[in-house]
């Protein structure tokens, strides 16, 4: 009886809504059904479970939070400093531009403003101004959000919205020289993406980010990433790279470089990406700019399987934001700290450093933690509670529990 009533209710709703859809002028009237069978959209577009624009990524290495929010498994960032490009996380505010929208990559245009001689360059012209390669950590501001207990909105990243990338491009200071220097009064370098769809309010949809002016001296505009032309999904054909700054400041599909007296007034600068106390928001709170010192263990973890007792190499990565990492300490009991060894080549202070700590683990449960220090700052034990779950660098949440047999 109950089933029959429910069936009747659903049918009546469908009929009613189909009619209302017509009234509302909605074209898709026949599809107005309140409930149907569960099926995640990414399963529709690709049997591997990845959306079309990043089918080339390594599905096994990734955790899909949403079509535009995809992180690497903790153990999938690799142990050779540079993250394999197929394992690099995806976090895109706007839809990725297509080849058709981009057109001939060499003819991609960048306008430069706030300089003594404003100019527009094509990518081909930028390539003639100069070239360098830098290694930087690219990390989403919300990496670690999944550890916050108040449930901040957004993708629930743990450690995988981070990567270490080799970028090739033109130093911004070469562009500044070609434009006769920076105009007087500038206090910020402001980069603008041109990926906002035209039917949206540009003040809300334009990804435009300002960083303190002096950052330009170390910044590049990149057209290559880990040895391949910058993929569209990562902001191709041109992206700004202000090293040591959170991912959002690395503006994708870059169309304008400006030196400005004030910070941009678009939403993505003014109110979004602000580190505010829980329950508060506004432009008066700090923006997600420089990344704080941070580290985490990538092996062993609960992802890497059973750990056999005896000698174990505990490996991880440590980053200092804009400061050089001075040391990393590891604990296998949640309290006693011992120095780990740095391994692999030093790729500059903006890259992360690999560390390894050799431990003898007895059978049982172990809490493995790492704590990095850079420029005199050490990772705190606890996260800084904030509304949107940004900039988490507390060591405790990032520790791993492993079972040793």
């Amino acid at each position, binding site marked *: 009886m109950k089933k029959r009533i429910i069936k009747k*209710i659903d049918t009546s709703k469908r009929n009613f809504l189909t009619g*209302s859809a017509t009234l509302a002028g909605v074209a898709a009237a026949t599809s*107005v059904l*309140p409930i149907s069978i569960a099926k995640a959209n990414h399963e529709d577009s690709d049997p591997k479970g990845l959306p079309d624009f990043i089918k080339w990524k390594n599905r096994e290495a990734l955790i899909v939070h949403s079509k535009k929010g995809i992180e690497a498994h903790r153990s999938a960032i690799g142990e050779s400093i540079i993250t394999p490009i197929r394992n690099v996380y995806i976090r895109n505010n706007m839809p990725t531009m297509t080849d058709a929208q981009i057109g001939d990559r060499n003819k991609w245009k960048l306008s430069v403003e706030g300089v003594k001689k404003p100019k527009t360059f094509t990518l081909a012209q930028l390539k003639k101004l100069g070239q360098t390669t830098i290694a930087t950590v690219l990390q989403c501001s919300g990496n670690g959000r999944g550890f916050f207990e108040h449930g901040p909105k957004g993708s629930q990243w743990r450690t995988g919205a981070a990567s270490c990338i080799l970028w090739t491009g033109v130093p911004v200071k070469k562009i500044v020289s070609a434009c006769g220097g920076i105009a007087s009064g500038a206090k910020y370098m402001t980069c603008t993406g041109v990926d906002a769809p035209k039917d949206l309010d540009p003040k809300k949809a334009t990804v435009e980010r300002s960083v303190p002016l002096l950052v330009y001296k170390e910044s590049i505009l990149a057209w290559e990433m880990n040895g391949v032309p910058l993929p569209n999904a990562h902001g191709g054909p041109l992206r700004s790279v202000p090293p040591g700054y959170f991912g959002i400041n690395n503006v994708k599909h870059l169309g304008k470089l400006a030196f400005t007296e004030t910070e941009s007034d678009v939403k993505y600068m003014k109110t979004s990406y602000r580190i505010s106390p829980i329950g508060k928001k506004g432009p008066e709170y700090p923006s997600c700019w420089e990344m704080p010192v941070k580290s985490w263990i990538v092996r062993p973890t609960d992802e890497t399987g059973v750990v056999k007792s005896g000698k174990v190499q505990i490996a991880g990565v440590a980053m200092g934001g804009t400061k050089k990492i001075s040391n990393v300490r590891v604990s296998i009991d949640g309290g006693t700290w011992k120095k780990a060894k740095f391994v692999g080549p030093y790729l500059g202070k903006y890259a992360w450093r690999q560390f390894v700590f050799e431990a003898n683990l007895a059978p049982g449960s172990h809490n493995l933690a790492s704590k990095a220090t850079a420029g005199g700052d050490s990772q705190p034990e606890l996260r800084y509670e904030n509304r949107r779950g940004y900039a988490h660098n507390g060591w405790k949440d990032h520790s791993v529990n492993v079972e040793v047999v």
Partner: protein
Amino acid sequence: MRICKIYFVVLFFSFFLMTDLKADSEKMVLGLEVFNNKAMCSTCHVLKAAGSTGDIGPDLDSLKPSEEQVRSVVIEGLGVMPAFGEEGLLTSDEIDAVSYYVAHSSEK
């Protein structure tokens, strides 16, 4: 006599059931209207039930948000999404309706 009593009891509860059903349907209608027209949610979101295929915000059929989750984000906004409540772009009835509509329309 007993049958008569049962009849009235059933009639009594049916009245409330029908009232609820009418209220739910009205909410769904208003919710759809807000979704596709006033708030233009369809510009940015996929929601098959509304025939929308927007590619900017999360796919609501995949996300399957609860009514409370929708309400919170509609009121406060997130990223490019306007704060429809805080900026006074929707009335509280419209927010209730669109939250109810999305929570009950995303593919379960």
